[in-house]
């Protein structure tokens, strides 16, 4: 295990040490110190609406079950039998009254309590079925913010509200986009694996400089296809894919129009796309007009305009969640090993909005997070190349200095109006903070 001083030296404000991406011992320490303590996104309440509903996911490398209790509360249980350690539940989601181990049929209640062991007579008198050590280990803190469920394996620590800081705005904005105030995960999900460290995903998401290079092939193809090849009323797409591809064609002039915000908790987001005219503020078509009317009926004209006009992209909630409220999407990072990561993508159905609005969210999800995405596949390729490059061992420390002299402090966050690597620096600071504090 790496010593505390070694770990603290890894997260320099100007760039992480490459060991942080390649050393299995550091990864193990991350699983304990970050994923074993910080608030980790484990799902949305709409995935477990009724008592007995469960959703299998991960906290770090540990498989867990998000379970709706009979009381309506939520629990997050480790998916391993306390008898022989067998993986309990193999299904991704479902509904049950109990979790019964396939090996020797130990049965656990929805709250993780052991309630049945076959052939109890065979056990010594001091075998106590009510002993908590025999219960499924349950995350001590599970909290939901407007349907977004987070869990922490630490008994104490910052509250979820303190951890989220101003990122609650992104969740508020997504929920407020539903005319009836309810959103639910719908339309399936996509899971993509890349051969690189988990930190690379969030470090890339708010990196303004890379799209013009990494996504050049899709930008150029979409632009050259402009001559009527991809008409805006393309049968199944209405120009959405083409638009998404072209939007990555940022020039150095564009870079400086984007505003970055990074918080002390390690979160960050991009802004300024609407203000600078880089992206159209709102689509104007019959579906959007119908939707806007229903939102105005629910919120009033002024609030509806504020909700729809929120100028924030890639709301990264460190360490694992990315919320794109405008497009009703989330992406979740799941570390598998020091050099392997899975990204899960979901979209939401907004209650009270036209079906077509949901269909556009489904389309956005497929275009962006599909393993066959013309955009994301190039990001995944680059993550793999970074990992392979770092494994060479010749680079002791990555560089993250861009914009360091122009970052501004204010209102509890750091800001930059240049193509700053500010998001890298706030992520490194959060990493340092969680990794450096002994339990």
């Amino acid at each position, binding site marked *: 295990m790496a010593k505390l001083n070694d770990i603290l030296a890894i997260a320099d404000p100007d760039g992480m040490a490459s060991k942080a991406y390649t050393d299995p011992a550091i990864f193990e320490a991350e699983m304990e110190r970050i994923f074993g303590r910080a608030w980790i996104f484990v799902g949305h309440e709409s995935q477990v609406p009724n008592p007995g509903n469960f959703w299998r996911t991960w906290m770090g490398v540990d498989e867990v079950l998000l379970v709706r209790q009979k009381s309506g509360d939520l629990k997050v249980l480790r998916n391993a039998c306390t008898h022989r350690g067998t993986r309990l539940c193999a299904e991704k989601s479902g509904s049950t009254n109990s979790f019964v181990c396939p090996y020797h049929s130990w049965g656990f209640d929805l709250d993780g309590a052991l309630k049945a062991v076959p052939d109890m007579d065979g056990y010594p008198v001091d075998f106590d079925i009510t002993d908590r050590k025999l219960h499924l280990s349950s995350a001590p803190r599970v909290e939901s913010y407007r349907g977004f469920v987070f869990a922490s394996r630490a008994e104490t620590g910052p509250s979820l509200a303190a951890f989220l800081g101003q990122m609650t705005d992104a969740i508020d904005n997504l929920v407020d986009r539903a005319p009836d105030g309810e959103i639910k995960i719908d*339309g399936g999900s996509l899971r993509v694996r890349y051969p690189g460290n988990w930190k690379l995903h969030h470090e890339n998401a708010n990196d303004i400089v890379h799209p013009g290079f990494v996504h050049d092939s899709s930008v150029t193809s979409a632009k050259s296809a402009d001559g009527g090849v991809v008409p805006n009323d393309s049968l199944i797409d209405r120009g959405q894919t*083409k638009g998404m591809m072209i939007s990555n064609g940022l020039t150095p002039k564009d870079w400086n129009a984007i505003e970055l915000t990074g918080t002390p908790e390690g979160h960050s987001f991009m802004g300024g796309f609407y203000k600078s005219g880089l992206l159209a503020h709102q689509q104007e078509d019959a579906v959007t007009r119908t939707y806007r009317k229903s939102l105005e009926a629910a919120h009033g004209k002024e609030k509806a305009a504020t909700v729809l006009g929120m100028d924030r992209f890639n709301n990264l909630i460190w360490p694992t969640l990315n919320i794109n409220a405008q497009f009703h999407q989330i992406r979740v990072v799941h570390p598998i090993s020091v050099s392997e990561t899975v990204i899960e993508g979901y979209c939401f159905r907004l209650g009270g909005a036209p079906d077509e609005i949901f*269909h556009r969210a489904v389309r956005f999800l497929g275009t962006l997070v599909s*393993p066959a995405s013309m955009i994301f*596949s190039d990001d995944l390729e680059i993550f793999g190349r970074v990992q392979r490059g770092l494994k060479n061992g010749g680079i002791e420390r990555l560089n993250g200095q861009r914009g360091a002299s122009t970052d501004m402090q204010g209102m509890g966050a750091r800001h930059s109006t240049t193509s700053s690597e500010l998001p890298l620096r706030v992520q490194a600071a959060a990493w340092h903070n969680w990794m450096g504090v002994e339990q």
Partner: protein
Amino acid sequence: MESLTLHHQVSNFLAQEAELLDLGYFDRWLDLFADDGIYWIPSAPDQTDMEGQVSIILEDVALLKLRVARLSHPRAYSVTPSPATIHLVSNIILETVTDKITVRSKLIMNEVRDDISTTLSGNSTHHLIASGDSFKILLKRVDLIQAGGTFNAISIPL
């Protein structure tokens, strides 16, 4: 005997389609599609909904043109170096033959790139219409047996 001839013609067509993909002749592969043709790789087994459920690929010819253009771009990093593939098509069954032919087949696609080998397998369904002395694709649907699971990046069409 007539159905045997048709089976032979359809088998040849599917083999030629696979060959174009393996040779990297993506423009010519795209020419096999009818103007209103659709290429679909669902994300879930038994998926029926194209709009309300996400797909791995759901593209018409206009979008496929874009996909094909990207594949030949010099800085399409996910295909640089370019992968070598074998699309193996077999177990070809003519399902229904009216003015439209429905063909089912099995696909195993092996891709090797940068010393890394990947295999994807699936059930393909082609809807074909006669065109000259060959066919055009109205719909190509590939149901991967990996659907619903976790994928590495997929670059070459299946």
